Each structure stands twice: as C-alpha cells, then as structure tokens.
C-alpha cells in the first residue's frame, strides 16, 4: 500500500468516540472584545477543554461584529459565531462585588482563566491571579493585552486595548509588507494581511502556553501566569525584521512583489489570474526559465548571488512577467509535467492564487473534510473545521456560538449548585 493510502487510514477514525486531548480541563474565558483571547479559547475548546465563556449580562461586544455589518443570526455576527465554537455561554457582572464573589467561586473549579481586562484591573478588584492562585495554586492564568502586564511601558499603556492592526504595525511586520517605492501610493505604504494574523497567532501561542502549563502542572502541581500580546506574537513570527540591526545591516524595507532571501519566489499575473512561481536554486531556476522559454537568462544570472541583488530581481521579474502574461495556469502546469516526465533536472513550482470562493469549490478541501455546513438559528452556514489531524485524539467542532447566557442554568448548577430561585435572584440583581 502506498504511503498516502496508508497514512489516510490513521485518520479514518470515529472522532466522536475518541478522547479529546484536553478532556477534563475547565477554562473560564472572561475576555471582552478580544479577538485573540477568543481565538485561544476556541482552540482549547477544539482540543476538548470545557470552555465557559463569561460575558457581562449585555454580552460581549464581539457578538456585534460582522463584515460590513451584514450577516447576523439572532443578533450574533459571523466572527463570534465561528469562534464561539464548542463553548458554554454564561453571564456574570464582574463590575459588581457580588458578581466577583461568584467569579471567585467559579475559579476554584477552573484549571485555566483567560482574561483581557486592562492589566491590573482584576488584581485591583481582588480577583486577579495573585489572589486566586492563593486559593487555587494549580490555576493557570492567561492575560491578553496590547503592551502586556510587565515591561517598561506596561503600566503607562495599560489602558490601550490590544488589536490586530496594533500587533501588525508595531512589530514592523506591516513595514515589511509594502510594495517597492515605484509602485506609488497606497501600494508602497505598509499594508496589513487581509485576515486577523496578529490576534490569531497570539491565540495560538497562548493556547500552546496553556498546554505547556498544564503539562508542567502534572509534574509539579503548580500553576502559573501567562502573559501575551499580539505584538510579542508578531515579532516572534517575523524575527528577521529587527534582527538585521544586530548585524549592522541597514533598515529593513519591504520589497513586494519581490523577496529578500529567494528569487524567483513571487506572484505574477497570468492570462487567467495570478500565479505563484518559484525556482531559486540553480537547477530549479533553470527549469523555471526554460519552461517559460527564456533559458538564455541563465548565463546572465547563473547563481543565487547574482539573482538576489535587488536591481537584478527587478529586471528578472519584469522579463518573466512578460512571459507569464501570455500563459494560462493550465499551460504552465502542462510544461511542468512534461519536464517531469522527461526526467529533466530541477523543479519549478507553480500554484494558482485561489480565491476563497474557488477554494470552497475545490475537491481537495472537500476530500480533506475542512469545511462543514452547520445549522444556526434555522439557517445553514459553512464553517471551517479544526484542520490539524491527530490520529488518537482528534480535534472536534461540536457547535457554534450560543445566545447570551444560554448555559447559565447548566453551568451554575454544575459548579455552584445554583438553580431555580437562586438564579432568578441573581437575574433580578442584574448579576447574570
């Protein structure tokens, strides 16, 4: 049996019957208006943790976001619906002393607390990590903020909420994402990716931190505090930007559509759309330009040192652009396949730049089971599944966001034994 058939068998599993990796872990997500914390708790919930999302009685403002203010399902916008996955939704008024007392009691049952309040606020209210870890020493506490809970500027800028564009811009990632000066404005100005890269990656690192802390707790019994910002996360994934200065390099500049380390490694316009093409080692470069019918360029640019020079990249990009414009994607792949069949040296890589709508129609994603139609409020929407495959403890998508306080009865009964009249009382007092 070939590997791609055999490997598939490892994942032909009945997800529902298998244990989730974080089964039994209880997470309180008290974050507010924080896409990064929300993504983190989504990931933990996909990995099987019981995530209890705590909102003020009027709900998290994140519920109200939706692209162009367009689609709402019972008042919930798309970002919250999609990343509300697998969570339980309760309300609790932390502005009130009695609400904070309930939070303290809930935290005694929790393994993890996630929060995004202004650094120091929970502490000043007596329900911060410092106080609650005295009562529950195994507690793992995750704080999300823009400038973090420590460091030179943390106190002064505690008021500043974290955001995607904050992490993208302050990390210099945005500065690296700009076209060459000759492109003119706005194209040569710093540009952010079209999705929430900074807040999402902060969420991924935070949930990795939670699992690290859970693992360490198994060995030591000790909990800890985790501090994260989208700025730290962005700096981490783009280290080379600031790093140049340690080696006395000049300021880092964005050079899109070119690259600073490899060429050709770029996007071009083709007859029927756009393509990524690459072949930066000598044999791969030769394969690429021969397939494009300009093999004579090799003599002029015979090694990576010649090709990587910015002025040479510009010339080469233009030369190749004239070729690419005359070809369709099918013609390009045809040339690549012929090359491969003739067993010639070198590999040129082409990839069509695919739009979201096209992706949703492709068989590849369907076969991999990456999207699922789900019901919400009587309507069907398509959502992305957890995409990382574990053979013994699969990640799961169980349900989407629910209404404000929908799980109040269940959660308050389960953890605090509150039911019926007790809950009515809390409701009357505007605590939930």
């Amino acid at each position, binding site marked *: 049996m070939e*590997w*791609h058939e055999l490997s598939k068998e490892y994942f032909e599993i009945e997800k529902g019957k298998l244990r989730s990796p*974080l089964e039994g872990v209880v997470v309180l997500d008290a974050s507010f208006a924080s896409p990064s914390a929300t993504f983190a708790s989504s990931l933990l919930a996909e990995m099987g943790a019981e995530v209890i999302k705590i909102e003020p009685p009027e709900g998290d*403002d*994140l519920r109200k976001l939706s*692209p162009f*203010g367009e689609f709402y399902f019972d008042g919930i916008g798309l970002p919250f619906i999609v990343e509300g996955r697998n969570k339980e939704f309760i309300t609790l008024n932390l502005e009130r002393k009695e609400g904070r007392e309930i939070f303290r009691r809930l935290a005694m049952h929790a393994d993890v607390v996630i929060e995004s309040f202004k*650094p*120091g606020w929970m502490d000043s209210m007596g329900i911060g990590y*410092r106080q609650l870890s005295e009562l529950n020493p195994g507690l793992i506490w995750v704080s999300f903020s*823009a400038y*973090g809970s*420590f460091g*030179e500027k*943390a106190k002064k800028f505690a*008021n*500043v*909420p*974290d955001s995607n*564009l904050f992490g993208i*811009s*302050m990390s210099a*990632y945005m500065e690296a994402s700009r*076209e060459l000066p000759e492109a003119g404005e706005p194209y040569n100005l710093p540009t*952010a990716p*079209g*999705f*929430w*890269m900074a807040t999402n990656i902060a969420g*991924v690192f*935070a*949930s990795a931190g939670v*699992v*690290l802390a859970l*693992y360490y707790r198994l060995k*030591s019994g000790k909990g*800890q505090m985790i*501090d994260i910002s989208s700025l730290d996360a962005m*700096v*981490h*994934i*783009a*280290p080379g930007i*600031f*790093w140049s200065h*340690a080696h006395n390099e000049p*300021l880092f500049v964005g050079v899109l559509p070119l*690259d*600073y380390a490899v060429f050709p490694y770029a*996007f071009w316009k083709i007859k029927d759309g756009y393509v990524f093409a690459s072949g930066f*080692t000598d044999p791969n470069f030769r394969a690429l330009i021969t397939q494009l019918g300009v093999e004579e360029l090799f003599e002029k640019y015979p090694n990576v040192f010649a090709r990587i020079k910015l002025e040479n990249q510009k010339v080469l990009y233009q030369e190749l652009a004239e070729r690419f414009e005359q070809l369709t994607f099918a013609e390009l792949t045809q040339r690549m396949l012929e090359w491969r069949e003739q067993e010639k040296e070198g590999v040129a890589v082409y*990839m069509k730049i695919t739009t*979201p709508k096209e992706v949703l129609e492709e068989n*590849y*994603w369907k076969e*991999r089971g*990456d999207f699922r139609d789900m019901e919400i409020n009587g309507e069907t929407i398509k959502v*992305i599944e957890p995409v990382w*495959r574990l053979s013994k*403890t699969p990640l799961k998508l169980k349900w989407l966001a629910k209404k404000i306080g929908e799980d109040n009865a269940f959660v308050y009964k389960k953890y605090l034994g509150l039911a019926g009249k007790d809950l009515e009382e809390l409701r009357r007092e505007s605590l939930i």
Partner: protein
Amino acid sequence: MTKDFFEWTKEKFDIRKVFEKPEALKGIRVLDLSQVLIGPETASLFADFGAEVIKIEPPGMGELLRSVDLWSRFWKNNSVGVMWVQRNKYFFGLNLKHPKGKAIFYDLVKKSDVIIENYVPGVMERMEISYKHIKEINPRIIYVSISGFGQWGERWNWPSWDAAAQAASGVSAISGYEGRVPMKLPYYPGDMLGGAAAFMVALAALYHREFTGEGQYIDVTQAENLARHMSLIWSYVSKKGEDWKRLGNKDASIVANAFKSKDGRLVTITAISNSHFEGLCKAMDKSELLEKYPDVVSRLKPEAREEIDGEIERWVSEHNAEEIIEMSAEFGFSAGIARNSLEVYTDGHLRDRGTVWMYNDPLFGEMVHVGPPVKMSETPGRIKWTVHPVGYHNRYILKNLLGFSDEEVKRLEEEKVIGYWVDFFGRTPPPEFDPEKDPVFRW
C-alpha cells in the same frame, strides 16, 4: 500593604531570573528531521521551553536553508535566516541512508518522545522511518508530519513552499489591493504560523500521553493551517455567494484602518468595543460621531464606515504619530505606528519582555534573538544558542546519549555514517571558532 501590581509582575516575569527557573519540557527529547522553516520552527519552540531537540542533518551540506540568507549576505559565514529557527538544538550529522546510520536513528527513537519531519509525503516511508516503522519501535512516540497539503488527499505529492500555501489557501487572494497582484505576505507566514500550530497540537498529544501512555500520528499542513486563520471569511463568502474583496488596510468587521499622520507616519487605529469607540471619539473631540453611531453594528455599514474613516483620517493628519500613541493610553483605544526594524530592535519595552532577546551566543558572541512568544511566570522559555555547524554535537550525542566510545565514533566517521560540515558558503563555522579548542565539539 500589598505590592503594586506592576511591581509584582516585574518581579514575577523578570527575564534576568529566567535561567534560575525550571523548564516545562525538561526530559522531553525531540528528533528533528525537518528542514527550511516550518518543521525547524516547530522544533525550535520545543527547544525554547526546555526539550532536548536533536537536529539530524545529512553530513556535509546539511540543511537546505543554510544556503539561503537575506540578500545572500551570510553574516560570519552563516545564514541569518537559518538562525531564526535553529534555537537551542543539538546538531547531529547522521547519514540515514547508511544502514548503521539508520540503526543509530532507531536507537535514538527508543529514547525519544517526539519526531518532527516536513519532507514531501512518502519520503520517510521510502527511508523506512515513517510512522508505520517508528511506532513499532516506540509506540509512545508522537510523530508530527508537516507538509504543504497533507499526507493523504489528492495533493499529497505536491511540492510546497510557504507562498504556494498562501496562494492555495486564499490568504493572498484576500490581501493587498483590488486590481494589483495579490499580496505575498512577507516573512513566510505559511511556515511560521504553521509551525506554531504544529507545536500546539503536538503539546496536546504529549499531555494526552501522560494519561494513556499512547503516542500518535499528527498531520499538519501549511495550506489548511492558513485557511483556519481565515475563520469567518469562509462563512461570509459562502453566505454571500460572492468573493471577498481585497481591502488594503481596512478591516471589514471592526472599525480599524491605517492613516497618515502629520509627520508622515502610517498610524493604525482600532476601536472594537463601544468603549474603545467612545474613547476614540473623545480623543478626536467628536462626540457627535458617537451620538450618530451609538452601537457597534451601525458603524460597520459601508456608508458609516466611510464617514468614520474620513473623520479619523483628518484627525490623524493633524497630529504627529507619537501624540496619537500618547492619546491612546489616555483615552483607551488601540493605536499603533507602522514601526520600522530599528524601532523594534531598540524598543526597551520589548527587551524588558524578552521578546527582543539580547544574549551572548557560545559560537557567535554578542547576539540578538527572538525570545519566546508567550511569557510564562514559572517555566519561562529561553534562548541558549542558535545554529551550529553540521555535526557539531556528534560526539556529545553519541557518547553521552548512546554510550559510544571514542574509537567507535572514529570508526563511524571513517565509514561515513556520521559527518561534519563542508567548506562551502553557509556551512563554515564563524571565523573565531577553533574546533580543536572547543570542549563541546571535542566531547
């Protein structure tokens, strides 16, 4: 009286005390068979938090990325690019095509917890070191295979680079400006975001193993990982029936965009919640904007956004960037400057946080590295060293871990089972390095 919160956190997270604290992954051994960025970054994250990561390279040329550097400059004979993702590892030059090399690898497998590889699917199988083989030797192993499109499915044998995954997943098609060539997101996020996710799920598998003792197989792909990051966009496009437009810096779901300041900087402004927007309006002295658009939903409609963005644009253009940053702290909205590399490098705050990590590298001397992305009070991550030449830790691993004698090591060298670097660009040690006098190399 209790200590001020920030005094307390300052002590709790003090990076000068990091090396006195325990490491979360102490005792975990990772065999890193990967190359280029995505797999190496996954393994580096393990090493940041204390795992013993053994990077296995073919003797001689070693890892492919050793040939690649920014503008091909090669600082102290080495690729700076390769340094990003080779943190705290042990460098083992082992010939896996030699039967004795494979036997040594199998011995290591028995003593290891995690394997990470990112070859084209099928390569490990042909070399008889795929999960199928490894689980027979050590069923507790967590085997992480990373690829462009997955071990199975119709694209299983497609070669991939980060930008190929960007192209295939849709992240590029939604980035940049309409009418332009879509944006190739810089700094290889297909790799770096994917490496972070692979680390996260491998940790989850490790945690699970503590309860059941069972290892497992993990399939992580560049393309699907990027698609996961697009989150709501899939739901929007399928509901709308139309494709997503490229919006430049404008966020469709949040009042957020970038604007030019008086002093010519690009400033990002974000107001997610009602209170953020209130703070922004106060800073702009535009209470009428808040009255006109009192709730979050009303602000997101295209006409409203045009008006609001227009007001912010004018206001930003009348102030210097630093003034706006000061006001963000006073009024509680999110503002950033599109900073340049030097501003990040010299940012005392990021140095305090160990995000920009200054240290003395055993091989390269005074260095900077990117510190752990998540700050942990009890088991903080740390940087010890970066890339070493191919085979630098051969003797250390063979003698220390596998009990080989000096003579046996010598024989393995002669039989070309193990090997070292070659004198070729990107492979030679820094000029200051003297192999004869290096105690670790001579182990």
